[in-house]
């Protein structure tokens, strides 16, 4: 029996596996991004991906944002009442939405909607030889399928987050003025008094990163899927799970970068 070697092998194999996947993912991402700099460009594909990611995600993201803003106002009002700090409700709502909840919640919702659909579409193309067919028709599949989606992710999420920020603040405003007894003018005033450009900007940068991650995980899992319908289903699940985890992990890293000094 060779216990120490087994233990090392048991640790080493998964670690190597993770490094291997991370490396391949990084190469995949670089390859995809590099096509954004080299013609020909597939503007139609970019437009379609943008509509799919931004426009069709609007209802989901809007509802999420409104309810989140409403809950934030209610929770912080009742919580802060314990130390008579109800006046901070407006600031809490706007800062939480712009810095944190807008990008993260929009990211998670879009990851569920678009990540799975992207992985399933590209995965189906892989297992039915459509990706091979693209390359026999003088079209680089990375350029045609992946690059436009990566760019669409980077552009779409910040757009959605602007909407989410506005609607979240609006939701908080409705609850505060209609049922918590705040004066509308004073509420709006205190909303913007302590808001800094960096609060909004950091949220938008986060959103761009999350959008990229969602598109990347959808494309990568679809592109590398194999084994028929089951493989495609697996790719869709993996795309959503991995994108969601990466969003939360990168959220921490980016927050640390922006605000911890």
């Amino acid at each position, binding site marked *: 029996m060779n216990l120490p070697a087994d233990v090392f092998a048991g640790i080493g194999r998964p670690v190597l596996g993770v490094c291997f996947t991370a490396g391949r993912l990084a190469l995949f991402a670089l390859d995809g991004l590099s096509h954004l700099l080299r013609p020909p460009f597939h503007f139609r594909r970019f437009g379609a991906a943008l509509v799919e990611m931004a426009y069709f995600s609007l209802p989901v993201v809007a509802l999420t944002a409104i309810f989140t803003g409403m809950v934030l106002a209610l929770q912080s009002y009742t919580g802060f009442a314990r130390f008579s700090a109800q006046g901070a409700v407006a600031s809490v709502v706007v800062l939480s939405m712009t810095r944190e909840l807008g990008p993260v919640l929009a990211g998670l919702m879009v990851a569920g909607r678009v990540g799975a659909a992207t992985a399933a579409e590209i995965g189906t193309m892989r297992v039915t030889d459509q990706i091979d*067919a693209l390359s*026999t*028709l003088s079209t680089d599949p990375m350029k045609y399928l992946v690059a436009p989606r990566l760019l669409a992710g980077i552009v779409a999420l910040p757009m959605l987050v602007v909407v989410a920020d506005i609607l979240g603040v609006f939701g908080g405003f409705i609850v505060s003025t209609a049922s918590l007894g705040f004066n509308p003018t004073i509420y709006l005033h205190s909303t913007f008094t302590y808001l800094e450009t960096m609060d909004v900007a950091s949220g938008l940068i986060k959103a761009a990163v999350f959008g990229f991650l969602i598109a990347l995980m959808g494309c990568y899992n679809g592109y590398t899927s194999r084994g028929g319908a089951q493989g495609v289903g697996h790719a869709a699940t993996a795309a959503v799970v991995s994108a969601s985890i990466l969003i939360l992990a990168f959220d921490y890293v980016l927050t640390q970068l922006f605000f911890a000094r």
Partner: protein
Amino acid sequence: MTTPLPKIRVRGLAKSFGEKRVLDGVDLDVPAGTSMVVIGGSGSGKSVLIKCILGLIEPDAGRIEIDGVDVLSLRPRKRRAVTARIGMLFQNGALFDSLPVWENVAFGLMAQKMVRRIEARARADEILGQLGLAASVGELFPAELSGGMQKRVALARAIAATPDILFFDEPTTGLDPIMGAVIDGLILDCVKRLGSTAVAITHDMASARRIGDAAAMLHGGRIVWSGPAASLLESGNPLVDQFTHGRREGPIRMELRA
């Protein structure tokens, strides 16, 4: 005098998937402007062979030359430029199901020759017409077509940009006999009139003899026989004889495949 350079020359091509050796030293020459028919049992590696030539599968060993250029040693971009001159009809069609039929057919034209969409549309309708498909079919999506119609659309897509090498993976399976003959005629037309070089995989002996100048049989990972397609039925090779006459008894045993 030297023999003219073959359009496609394959030497010692080998490919395994895991333990399974699918190709085990394939040698094949296809002279320019001719058509070669490849026959062989199901699972003998015919599709793998042409996917290797197309650069879609990386072989383990061997040489592949197109116009005398060793494509396996080329850098990816150069290699893509070479393989972009090859049109391919996939065994399962592989139509883009998110695009209407006419965009499928015109895809290569729009990607490569940068023609405008209106011209591409007209050209697509013309090719569809040659294959017996009305222009209104162009508006449909692949999922709305019958299997045989999908096959014809896939064929239209492969030949639309008039590539100088054409691969057909079972062009006539799933078609009725008359449509099969029409397709054969179209393939012949590409070779004879446009001077393309063609490699066709088929299980249909009548079709093989109609479209092929030469024929080759793949068995056990190697080319076990090659000769004029006209002599397929009287080749004198026991393997080919059993295959072309569809006999149960003979040197080829049905293997249980892993």
